């Protein structure tokens, strides 16, 4: 149900490096799963809205947002975060050139 070409396209979209052999294997597995999922075609959802928060009725919607104000974290947490980056220079995280 999904071609090898589409499998490779999807892997590329998802930024996943896969070998040619893996593309063939994933194609088989994804096809088998997607074939099974085709059965949702028979569901009548003409009168339904989608659910995104399953307990939405219980949410206090007036208390969800906060002020768009940065709150200073602790210095040592900031340093720990920088330390976790694989590539850094001073307090900057290094990223490959985009342009």
């Amino acid at each position, binding site marked *: 149900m*999904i071609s090898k070409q*589409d*499998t490779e396209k*999807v*892997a590329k*979209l*998802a*930024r*996943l*490096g*896969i070998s040619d052999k893996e593309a063939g294997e*994933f194609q088989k*597995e*994804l096809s*088998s*799963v*997607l074939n*099974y*999922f085709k*059965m*949702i075609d028979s*569901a009548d*959802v003409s009168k*339904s*809205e*989608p*659910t*995104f*928060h*399953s*307990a939405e*009725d*219980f*949410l*206090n919607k007036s*208390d*969800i*947002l*906060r002020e768009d104000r940065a709150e200073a974290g602790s210095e040592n*947490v900031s340093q*720990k*975060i920088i330390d*976790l*980056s*694989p*590539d850094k220079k001073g307090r900057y*995280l290094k*990223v*490959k*050139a*985009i342009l």
Partner: protein
Amino acid sequence: MDLFELDIKGIYKGLKEKQFSAVDVAKSYLDRIKSENKKVSAYVSVFEESAISQAKEADKRIKDKSALMLTGVPIAIKDNILVEGGKTTCSSRILEHYDAVYDATVVKKLKSESMVILGKTNLDEFAMGASTENSGFFPTKNPNDLKRVPGGSSGGSAAAVADNMCCCALGSDTGGSIRQPASFCGVVGLKPSYGAVSRYGLVAFASSLDQIGPLAKTIDDAEAVFYSICGRDKKDSTSVEYKASGSLPAKSLRIGVPKEYFVKGLDKEVEKIIKGAISKYESAGAKIIEISLPNSKYVIPAYYLICTSEASSNLARYDGIKYGLSKGKEGDLMDVYFKSREAGFGREVKRRIMLGTYALSAGYYDAFYLKAGKIRTLIKDDFKKAFEKVDVIFSPVAPTPAFNLGEKTSDPLAMYLEDIFTAPVNLAGLPGLSVPAGKIGDLPVGLQIIGDYFEEKKIFDVAKIIFGK
């Protein structure tokens, strides 16, 4: 009785009466881990030093009489929940060396009661799986039969509780990941209502489905841990102001049994145990009412389309830039992304990311993700209608008891079908409890008790009617 065999009440009583100290209890569990973990492989990291110092703090509180019910009780935490000061790996190579920078809200709450955190337990990588065989490090074994899986994805937590390597544990449940391993290992496991427990500090898999919950030796223990961790958190805007609701009805309890669940595919021995449990309730005066959940057949496709779509978005952050495994630096930016994710993610994680990416892509979004979201509403409404006629719903937790290691790993779809009774509860956002109801030989089998929104108290009380404390 060894200290590691005690439940929460036993520890609380012993500490209060000065029969032993919190340090004694912690040491008993740590020694137990040293002797058992190489067989069962429940733990990814053990925090021996900090556990002892937390136990010493607990002893101080007991001395100055500020101790609470959970003070000094040793707990294990699933390794997708952040505990500062140690690694949080999600059992993935991509986070193998990731140091948690903050505590999850639930961990903060447990620490404020001076619980003792023994370590982090193994899981299916990024909580994707039903056997813990997808862990990027090693599989966990079922303590009841070491050739079998403990279930998943919270297999490490369930095995640790079942084997007395902790008094209780935290797990997470997206499609059954607390309830199914609880059933397979013979312990109590609760998936709370969606929004009951803060997800701040839980590494996200599927944000509209994930919930953190307790695994424990007894129903009372699971209840005690649940009340400690539930509640509105400003840092999780999907969390709800929690009020324990739902008491047992004054007249006879009405138990709903879904007719769609007792069909071909359900193991005959599992069916016998579940029907046996239902008869016990009937003999105790409950009314057993057959209900219908007509959209049950769409559960697995709807669940897997929604969770993989959300996962494909949630796992995009693992890019080799901010933290975690980083490869491909000899190339350009795309190489960093492709090579880091190729090396860091396991097979099942890649499979699910691709499924989700496909389901959300242009041309497929309406037919897959959006349609699944609408089917979710149908499933939610099935339960709503059922709860007009019944107080709770009983069902099996899984179609089989614990299967053998390696038995289902070659067919992803076979593994997905394990979630058939648990995933609908996540889709609807209801609370579900798994309580040990019997055994097939050495293999435990759990009964699932499903309640209406935020009626955790009711389902605990219902469970206690037959299964005691």
